[in-house]
């Protein structure tokens, strides 16, 4: 993959009628997807108009009154909204870093196991949590971290603490708990794509390295990692665009009134104010803000990657 990409810089596609005739099937498929995209991704954007109205379901788009940027003004003068931006960013970045690093680490470690008898079961077991819904994962966490839960019991037996820690009452623990939960659930799943990339590496490289006297760690460092670098870069870029989707379910299900100030994310804010209080306009405004920031992030990251001469999305 890495080798081939180099050539794209040389090749400049030209659109000719002849070429179009030859590839008509591809064009039809392309058109179908474009229409799909227009209907399902772009048409709903009409709803963004709500953010500039005082939208009432009774009146609809056509008869709701326009209020300009008032909803945005409300958002940015609300301390709670500033806090949820901070929380979303913090948890997003924390999740990104931990799941990202863990997945790569896990894939490399797993690759070092030569026996398929051990490797396959581990791989399967490790990605199973991905299929658990958050409600189950948070249920397990809630039990495990409760004051009579297994974690507190272990800590008590190890004499590390005297009284059980109430993990969900302390604002300091919440972000790490969320990051840990994400890590536990997604590491195995995310590692699959790296494992696939590793499989594609030419074994000759390892053999040559062995002959040159490279040990395990040298091989990982000088062959495995550089070979999967393009994959890593692409996934990193895509994940950066997703940073603001730091989650809704985990925070919603694990949070409580006491630690609201660190647990509420933009999505929860939208739910409370937009859906819960029927202020759909405010909810839409917050949603727009989120989309715009995400677009800025992904373009920014892409531009940086471009400048650094790395693999990039577009």
């Amino acid at each position, binding site marked *: 993959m890495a080798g081939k990409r180099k050539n794209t810089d040389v090749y400049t596609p030209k659109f000719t009628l002849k070429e179009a005739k030859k590839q008509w099937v591809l064009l039809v498929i392309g058109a179908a997807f474009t229409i799909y995209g227009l209907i399902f991704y772009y048409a709903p954007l009409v709803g963004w108009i709500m953010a500039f109205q005082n939208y009432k379901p009774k009146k609809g788009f056509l008869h709701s009154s326009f209020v300009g940027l008032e909803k945005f003004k409300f958002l940015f003068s609300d301390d709670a909204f500033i806090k949820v931006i901070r929380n979303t960013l913090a948890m997003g970045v924390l999740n990104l870093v931990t799941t990202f690093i863990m997945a790569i680490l896990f894939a490399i470690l797993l690759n070092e196991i030569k026996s398929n008898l051990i490797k396959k079961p581990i791989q399967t077991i490790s990605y199973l949590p991905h299929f658990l819904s958050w409600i189950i994962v948070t249920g397990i966490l809630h039990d495990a971290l409760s004051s009579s839960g297994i974690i507190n019991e272990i800590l008590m037996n190890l004499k590390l603490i005297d009284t059980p820690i109430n993990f969900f009452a302390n604002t300091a623990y919440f972000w790490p708990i969320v990051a840990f939960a994400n890590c536990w659930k997604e590491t195995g799943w995310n590692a699959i794509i790296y494992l696939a990339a590793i499989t594609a590496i030419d074994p000759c490289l390892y053999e040559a390295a062995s002959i040159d006297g490279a040990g395990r760690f040298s091989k990982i460092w000088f062959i495995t990692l550089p070979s999967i670098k393009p994959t890593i870069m692409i996934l990193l870029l895509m994940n950066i665009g997703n940073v603001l989707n730091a989650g809704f379910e985990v925070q919603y299900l694990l949070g409580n009134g006491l630690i609201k100030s660190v647990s509420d994310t933009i999505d929860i804010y939208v739910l409370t104010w937009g859906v*819960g*209080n029927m202020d759909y306009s405010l909810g839409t405004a917050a949603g727009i803000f989120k989309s715009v920031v995400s677009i800025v992030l992904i373009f920014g990251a892409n531009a940086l990657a471009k400048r650094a001469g790395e693999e990039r999305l577009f």
Partner: protein
Amino acid sequence: MKLKKITALFLSLGMTVSMLAGCGGGAAAPTGGSDTAAVEEDTGAKEDTVEEESDEAASNGEITEFTMFAAMPEAEINDDNEIQQIIAEKTGVKVKETWLTGQTDAEAIGTFIAGGDLPDYINGGDSMMALYDADVLVPWDDYLDKYPNLKEMYSDEEWESFRQEDGHIYWANVFQNTYGESKATTHNDEAFWIQAKVLEWAGYPKIETLDDYFKVLEDYAEENPTLEDGTEVIPYTALCEDWRYFCIENAPEFLDGYPNDGSVIVDVENMKIVDYNTTATAKMYFNKLNEEYAKGIIDPEFATQTYDEYIAKLSTGRVLGMCDQWWDFAYTVNDVFKTTGLDLEGCNYVPLGLVAEAGMEQQWHTYGDTLNNSSGVAITTNCEDVDKAFQFLNDVLDQEIHDLRFWGVEGVDYLIDDDGMYYRTEEMRAKWADTEYQASHECKYSYLPQWLGTSRDGKNAMQPTEQTSEFFDSLAEPLVKCFEAYDVKTYPEMIGSVEKELGPWFPMYSFSNAMTTETPGGVAWTKIGETKHEWLPKVVMAANFESEWESYMEAYNACNPQDFLDEMQEELDRRAGN
């Protein structure tokens, strides 16, 4: 290598735990071997009744299925529920009820509106105004006169109060409606509750203030730190979850002797709205909680527990006391106590009418009906057969159907003595309290219109919980002893509230519940709620109460509470002026 092994071990451990957790849920429901026999017997009885009454079936055997959503978390009943089937055969209508799961009522209703996939009936809790705003409800005006049972629920004046701005009635509250003479024996309101065994241990003292109350809890817990099986007792807990945070939040209004206006105090002498969040009593109350928390008397998990965890805790009998509404815990917890025999050990909760200073009058108990016109059952525009839907609302109030809903099947769930009084045997009571039986046999349609008070036969109570004989017969021994010691007969007498005429404005919460973020007051109300959810537990857990209280007040004032209070005052003036 080591890391991988540990990771793998941990992952597999996690999987196992999750599987076990899944199994645990199912097994938790109490099972009784005698159930099967009972159900068989009961099916026989059912067939008899149906044959007798088959001519009454509404339309020629065809059963219309309606759907219903109620913004309350409750257990769904089985699809082949027996009484539901009997009611369906008699009325030609079966209603599939779904309940709130996890989200708040506002969120659930908001999702319904945004998605447009509405059920036929909807009971939206505090979010009825949202449904009205979305224009998805059927106006009742043209139908009401055709259905006498339904019409009978409220007086003309009361029906008027359900009228919305556009001049139509869209819903009717289903609760707190007394037919004929009141039979109230329970305190279906808020109180500081205490286990009967704690009172017995303390020698049934007079408990008037928070200091008295916590003193008893502390002393008892010191001498009896664990239950018989070694579980540690929790002297006091306070639920803070979502809308149920009234358990920690609104005690100051009662402590000052005011009735449950919910969101504010109404100072009747000056006809002024008073904010109970900032009163001296509020500060005293939270200061007391703070002290008790520091002493370890209050459950360290009070702020983070969910409602389910809270109910589970109460059900084990380890919680000695808490502040709560009767309906929020008693139906579930008392049934569990009955099944597990904890009621005989004195775990049942007795209400105490605490006040800020000894000797004050209090109004924890609301005598008479409270009309909360901001909530109720409605029919949505998605309903295809509106006439039939109204017919069913009318039918469920029919005495025969009403008895089926709340008393069950005659001969199976209750018996009738020579005087025509309904009663249950101990076995019937135990069965009625069993969760499995509730799912397979009972169908209360608990969020459809219903009556309290006296049955149309003039003798029995509309609901068994209010049947005097039932009440006394089902009262566990420790409760009887407790009531005797305080020389009272019922829960309302136990709490001993004064009976005062409540003004036409009561309850003010029917207004604040219907507020939307359209107005500055509504925005303030939402922000106040968010702030209190965060700060009240913080204040209770603070190492330095004074400074934390000050920070709380600062955060509180940043919500512009005056906007909210002004709108409440306006509404009070409007209601009082009528």
